[in-house]
């Protein structure tokens, strides 16, 4: 009996009962489709988070002020960081770029348009640290910081909301009634997990602290962001920063830090672990439907053995050996699985890519491994589902089978 004979016999048996075979195949289609879609969803989430962190840079470290505890209660946002802290940290050998950051909400007016947005005061290095590029104009330089110039670089969404012309460089906007000259417009960067990155205004930190806020502590800041060299070790630099700040803030042994150092690489690794588990969970849920599908095959094959008892008897009477009967039944279950997995694969990939591209407008990553996994699982599921019915068929007594009504 050749491989072609086995395929032909299997196909004829499967196609001999179209509706039942279709319903059994449907179980596998749904199972494989679920696995493929769940893998795509998991990978999309992982990719999306990874992209966002990559845009921030894994060599980025953020220091936030005010994480001290008082009486066991974590305090709010105490401005324990200063511009001088940033200057000292900048002296560490692995620091490539650094900026103090002060954030605030701002009411911005242009003509008769009014828009509330996030305003950040920073140094020019902010562009390096956050990978910000300008579409029009330029970013402000350190001279503007030193002179507390009323320059603003605005996000494209903010420009749109204010009804500014396409190239608004040179236009005057009012921020809390103070006129600012737009010297640059950022390139669109899309949304991040922290919200829109395109709706914000960047101004020199000195302008924000001294002119807009009139702060009695013009050197205190809420955050310091820095980028370290690619070959630097995040953990080492984080330790150096903590040690330096504890020394500068005169914290004693046993005192808790009055700042928080957040290492983006560490966060990304944690997020990757979390999304990895999420992906596994999704696959596990989908695998249940595949398991149900395989039980469907086993059920169909067991029914088939009973229905085809006489056929098995005839085949044995004319010379079919037990292993041939086993191979025939196994090949039927594998063929059903294989057909189901191929359709499941096509529908799963088509649906995930289609929904991703045309509805979510996101390039869903396509991995080869779900394809390999599905085909492998199909063969294993088919074999596993068919083993019991095939052995049952092979062990049938030819005489009893021929007498079966």
């Amino acid at each position, binding site marked *: 009996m050749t491989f072609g004979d086995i395929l032909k016999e299997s196909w*004829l048996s499967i196609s*001999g009962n179209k509706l039942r075979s279709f319903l059994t195949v449907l179980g596998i289609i749904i199972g494989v489709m679920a696995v493929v879609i769940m893998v795509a969803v998991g990978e999309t989430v992982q990719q999306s988070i990874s992209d966002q962190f990559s845009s921030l840079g894994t060599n980025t470290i953020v220091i936030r002020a005010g994480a001290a505890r008082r009486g066991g209660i974590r305090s709010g946002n105490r401005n324990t960081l200063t511009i001088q802290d940033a200057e000292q940290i900048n002296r560490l050998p692995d620091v490539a770029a650094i900026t103090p950051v002060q954030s605030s909400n701002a009411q911005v007016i242009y003509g008769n348009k009014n828009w509330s947005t996030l305003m950040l005061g920073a140094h020019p290095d902010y562009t390096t640290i956050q990978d910000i590029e300008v579409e029009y104009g330029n970013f402000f330089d350190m001279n503007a910081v030193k002179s507390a110039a009323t320059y603003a670089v605005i996000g494209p969404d903010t420009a749109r909301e204010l009804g500014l012309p396409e190239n608004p460089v040179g236009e005057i906007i009012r921020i809390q009634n103070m006129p600012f000259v737009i010297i640059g417009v950022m390139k669109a960067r899309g949304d991040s997990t922290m919200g829109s990155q395109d709706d914000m205004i960047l101004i020199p930190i000195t302008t924000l602290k001294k002119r807009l806020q009139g702060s009695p502590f013009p050197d205190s800041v809420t955050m310091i962001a820095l980028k370290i060299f690619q070959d630097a070790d995040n953990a080492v630099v984080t330790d150096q920063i903590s040690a330096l700040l504890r020394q500068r803030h005169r914290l004693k042994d046993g005192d808790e830090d009055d700042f928080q150092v957040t290492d983006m690489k560490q966060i990304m690794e944690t997020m990757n672990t979390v999304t990895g588990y999420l992906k596994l969970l999704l696959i596990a849920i989908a695998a249940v439907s595949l398991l149900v599908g395989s039980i469907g095959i086993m059920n169909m094959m067991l029914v088939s053995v009973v229905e085809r008892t006489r056929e098995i008897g005839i085949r044995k009477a004319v010379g079919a050996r037990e292993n041939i009967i086993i191979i025939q039944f196994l090949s039927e279950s594998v063929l059903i699985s294989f057909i189901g997995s191929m359709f499941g694969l096509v529908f799963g990939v088509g649906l995930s890519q289609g929904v991703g591209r045309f509805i979510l407008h996101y390039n869903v990553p396509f991995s080869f491994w779900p394809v390999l996994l599905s085909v492998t699982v199909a063969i294993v599921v088919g074999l596993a589902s068919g083993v019991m019915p095939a052995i049952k068929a092979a062990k049938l007594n030819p005489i009893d089978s021929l007498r079966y009504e």
Partner: protein
Amino acid sequence: MTPAIISLNKICKIFPLEIGGEQQVLFDITFKINSGEFVAIMGPSGSGKSTCMNIIGALDSATSGIYELYGKHIKTMTNDELATIRNEYIGFVFQNFNLLPKRTVIDNVMLPLMYRGWVMNDRIRRAREMLKLVGLSNFESYLPTQLSGGMKQRVAIARALAGNPKLILADEPTGSLDSKMGNEILNFFKKLNKDLGITIVMITHEFEIAQYAGRIIHIYDGHITFDGPVPKNESVLLKSEQDYKK
């Protein structure tokens, strides 16, 4: 003297009963069949003749006794060896045809050749020869359900002959056919036996059908009551039954 191809020596068969206990259906059955013989195993319903045929056809095994087919001890063989014996030496013709209903006529005829490992072209050529022999050349792509009873039995005969067997075992081959079609099939068996020298063992409960054979083995209640050339009338067989009862 032609060699014995079938040799049964003190064959007994005991079946376990579902309700418990057991029932013996064959008692010390002993006979030989030589190559080229046309033998009818005859007896009333429940006499054990079909059980006897199943043992001869290697479809079932004896509880005790020695059965040799072409000098091979059947009892010591594995299931796969028995399957090979059936495939190479025996062609079966059943009362209810036992064709695969969802396979075409030619697929049914080719079935034993597939299990023998023949390549497709050889299978097709041989199956067409056999269909021509039984007069069904124009029906090779038909399904068995599209054929009459006589045609189905001829397909079954073509399948039995396809593997060029030395022995044909026919279990009530005319049981599902009308008398005209039955006679046609029996004449065909006679022709196969005479022209091709194929040994034929036929199970029947009708004396008229057994008369087509050259020898009758009459079984009654699991015992052989008559073994010899076909008598002129059935009374000889009925008398053998009466003698056994005494």
